[in-house]
C-alpha cells in the first residue's frame, strides 16, 4: 500500500495542528458557529442527532493492521467502543466530542490517516474495487490511480469550493465492483491499442433525490492523460454547475440538462486549451506511486489443503462460508476473504473495537497486513493462503464475523438513518435488523441467491436504495415513518435505478413485504441460476405488485406511485 513520505506526513500533522487552533478559537468564542462550521466540516466533523460525528477517510478502502488498531483505539478512547463503516469505504465515529477532535486527528495523523475531504463541496475520498490487486479479472491495479487522484485532488485550490460534493470511483477489472456508474465521475481501466491501458470515462451518475446512471463521455483516455482530462471535466462543472439550488448543483444535473454530447464537446474544448504537460503525471512519478502497489511476491501454493478439506466435510457452516464469502485470488493457492459485518440482528457496518482488533490480528497473521473496506460496509482480507482459511474462519466465528452472507439478502447496506443522522426522515437500522432476522437461516438465504437489499433513511440515498435489487427508502408521512420499495436496481455493470413498486409500507409491514417479494421471485424464477434482478427484468413489476397489493384494483393503487418523500 501507499506509504506517506515526509511531505504527506508533515501536511497531515500540520492540518491536525491547524484544526486544534480552530477548535480552541471556537471554544473561546473567537469564531462563531457560522464561521467554524465550514472549518470543522473540512475536517470531517459533523454535528449529528446525538453528538459530533467524525468521518475518517480510508483512501480507496485500503488499511493496514496498524491503522485498523488505531481506529479501534479511537473507538474505545473517544467514542463508545465502536465505529461504523460507510458506503464510501470510510469509517464514522458517532459519539465524539469537539473537545477531543484535535486529539483524534493527531492519533489519525500518527498512522498516516486524516478526515480531510470527507465533507464539503470538494472531491471526496476516491473509492475503488475492494479486490484491487488480487482479482482474477483485473486489467490494472486501480489503487495506483486512486492514489494519484488522492494526491492531485487534496486541497486542490481550484476544486475546494465546487457547486456541490464530487465523488470519483475507479475499477480496474472486467467486473465493476466499485459502483462506478453511480458516481460523478466513474473510471474503468480498459485496454487500448498495442497493449496500452487507459480509462473509459463516465460522468453524471449519482443517487440522491434525482438518480442517474452515469453516461460514457470518453471511450478511451490514455492513462497518462487522465489528470488533464478530469481537470477539464471539473472545470466545465465548476463553471456551469448550478450554485443557486442545492438540489440541482451536482454534475449529474448539468450533464443531463446539456445532454452528454454537448457536455462532452465543452469538456473537449476545455481539454484542448489546457496545458496538459503541466497537469499530467510525469511517468517517473506514476512509477514511484505504482511501486507502492507492486504485487507481493507470492509463491503459488496447493489449491487444496487436507485440513481445510476435512473441516469442510465435517462443518457445513464452514463449507457454506467458503462458498459465499471466499473468492478466488489471482495467485493459485490463495483466496480473497470477505468478512461480514452483517450478522442478522446487528447494525450493518458497525464494528466494535474488539472486532477491529480481531481483523487486524488476522491481517497480520494470515493476510499480509492488508485490509480493505467495501462500500457494502464489510471488510476484506485480500490475500489469505487457502491452507489458512480454517484458522481465519475459526477466529472470525469467535469475533462474530463469520456470517456466510456476502452478496446475499442479509448482506444489507443500511445508512445510519434517523437513529443517528440529522438529515434522515426515518429509521433504517431497525428495518435492516428485522429483515435480516426473517432471512437469518443461511441455507434459505443462500438458496435465494445473489440479492442486494439496500436501505436509506432519506432521499439523499446514503444507503444506496436506488441501486438495490430491492431498495427501501424511508419517508416521513404525516409524522410517521413509511417505507417506499423499489425493485430492479443494480450497482454493477448492468447499472439501473430501481422502479417504485407501489404505495409505501409502515415499518411493521416492510419485512413482510420483502418476504412477499422474495416468495414471488422464488415462485416465478426459471431456475436457481436466474438471479432476482434477472428474473425481475424478465417478468416485470406486475406479479410483484399483485402479490403485494392484490389484484382487485391495481390501477387505483398505482395512482399513488411516485409520491414525494415529504407526504
Amino acid at each position, binding site marked *: 500500500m501507499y506509504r506517506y513520505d515526509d511531505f504527506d506526513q508533515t501536511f497531515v500533522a500540520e492540518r491536525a495542528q491547524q484544526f486544534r487552533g480552530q477548535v480552541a478559537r*471556537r*471554544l*473561546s*468564542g473567537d469564531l462563531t*458557529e457560522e464561521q467554524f462550521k465550514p472549518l470543522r466540516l473540512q475536517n470531517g466533523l459533523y*454535528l*449529528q*442527532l*446525538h*453528538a*459530533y460525528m467524525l468521518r475518517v477517510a480510508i483512501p480507496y478502502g485500503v488499511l493496514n493492521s496498524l491503522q485498523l488498531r488505531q481506529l479501534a483505539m479511537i473507538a474505545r478512547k473517544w467514542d463508545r467502543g465502536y465505529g461504523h463503516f460507510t458506503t464510501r469505504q470510510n469509517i464514522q465515529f458517532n459519539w*465524539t*466530542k*469537539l*473537545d477531543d477532535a484535535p486529539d483524534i486527528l493527531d492519533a489519525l495523523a500518527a498512522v498516516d490517516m486524516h478526515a480531510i475531504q470527507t465533507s464539503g463541496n470538494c472531491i471526496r475520498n476516491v473509492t475503488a474495487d475492494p479486490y484491487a490487486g488480487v482479482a482474477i479479472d483485473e486489467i490494472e491495479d486501480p489503487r495506483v490511480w486512486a492514489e494519484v487522484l488522492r494526491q492531485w485532488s487534496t486541497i486542490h485550490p481550484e476544486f475546494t469550493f465546487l457547486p456541490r460534493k464530487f465523488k470519483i470511483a475507479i475499477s480496474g477489472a472486467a467486473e465493476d465492483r466499485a459502483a462506478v456508474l453511480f458516481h460523478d465521475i466513474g473510471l474503468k481501466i480498459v485496454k487500448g491499442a498495442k497493449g496500452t491501458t487507459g480509462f473509459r470515462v463516465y460522468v453524471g451518475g449519482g443517487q440522491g433525490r434525482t438518480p442517474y446512471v452515469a453516461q460514457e463521455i470518453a471511450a478511451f483516455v490514455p492513462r497518462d492523460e487522465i489528470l488533464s482530462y478530469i481537470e477539464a471535466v471539473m472545470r466545465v462543472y465548476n463553471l456551469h454547475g448550478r450554485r443557486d439550488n442545492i438540489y440541482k448543483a451536482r454534475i449529474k444535473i448539468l450533464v443531463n440538462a446539456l445532454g452528454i454530447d454537448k457536455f462532452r464537446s465543452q469538456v473537449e474544448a476545455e481539454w484542448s486549451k489546457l496545458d496538459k504537460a503541466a497537469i499530467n503525471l510525469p511517468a517517473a512519478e506514476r512509477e514511484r506511486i505504482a511501486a507502492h502497489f507492486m504485487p507481493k511476491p507470492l509463491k503459488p501454493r496447493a489449491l487444496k489443503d487436507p485440513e481445510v478439506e476435512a473441516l469442510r466435510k465435517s462443518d457445513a457452516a464452514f463449507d457454506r462460508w467458503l462458498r459465499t464469502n471466499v473468492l478466488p485470488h489471482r495467485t493459485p493457492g490463495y483466496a480473497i476473504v470477505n468478512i461480514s459485518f452483517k450478522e442478522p440482528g446487528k*447494525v450493518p457496518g458497525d464494528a466494535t473495537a474488539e472486532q477491529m482488533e480481531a481483523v487486524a490480528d488476522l491481517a497480520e497473521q494470515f493476510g499480509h497486513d492488508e485490509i480493505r473496506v467495501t462500500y457494502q460496509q464489510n471488510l476484506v482480507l485480500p490475500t489469505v493462503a487457502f491452507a489458512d482459511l480454517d484458522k481465519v474462519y475459526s477466529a472470525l466465528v469467535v469475533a462474530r464475523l463469520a456470517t456466510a452472507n456476502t452478496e446475499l439478502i442479509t448482506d444489507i447496506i443500511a445508512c445510519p438513518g*434517523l*437513529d*443517528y443522522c440529522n438529515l*434522515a426522515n*426515518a*429509521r433504517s*437500522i*431497525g428495518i435492516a*435488523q428485522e429483515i435480516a432476522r426473517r432471512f437469518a437461516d443461511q441455507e434459505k438465504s443462500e438458496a435465494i441467491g445473489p440479492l442486494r437489499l439496500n436501505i436509506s433513511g432519506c432521499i439523499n440515498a446514503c444507503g444506496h436504495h436506488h441501486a438495490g435489487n430491492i431498495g427501501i427508502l424511508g419517508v416521513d408521512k404525516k*409524522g*410517521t*415513518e413509511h417505507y417506499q420499495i423499489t425493485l430492479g436496481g443494480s450497482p454493477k455493470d448492468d447499472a439501473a435505478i430501481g422502479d417504485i413498486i407501489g404505495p409505501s409500507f409502515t415499518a411493521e409491514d416492510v419485512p413482510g413485504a420483502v418476504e412477499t417479494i422474495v416468495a414471488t421471485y422464488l415462485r416465478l424464477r426459471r431456475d436457481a441460476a436466474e438471479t432476482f434482478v434477472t428474473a425481475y427484468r424478465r417478468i416485470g413489476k406486475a406479479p410483484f405488485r399483485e402479490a403485494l397489493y392484490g389484484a382487485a384494483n391495481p390501477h387505483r393503487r398505482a395512482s399513488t406511485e411516485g409520491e414525494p418523500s415529504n407526504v
Partner: protein
Amino acid sequence: MPSVVTANHLRSGAVVYLARDGRWVEALDCADAVETPSELKALEALAHAAVERNEVTAVYAFDVRLDDGHPNPVSVRERIRAARSPSI
C-alpha cells in the same frame, strides 16, 4: 401545542434542553415546556444568550405533548434524541 427548546452542548455535542431559569439540562423531564408565544420567545432569548456565551449550538424549539405534566416529543426524531441513544 407546548414546546421545548433544545440545543447541542458546544463542547460535547450532547443533546440538552432549556429550563425556565436558563439552565441547560440533559433530561427532557427537567426541561420546561411552554405554551404561549411570549413564553417561547423568552426561552429563545435565553437560548440565544447561551449561544453568544459559546455554551450551546444548534438551538431550536420542538413540539411536545404533556402527559401528567411530563413533556413527550411528538416527532420520532425528538423521541430518539431524548432517549440519548439509537432506538435499536
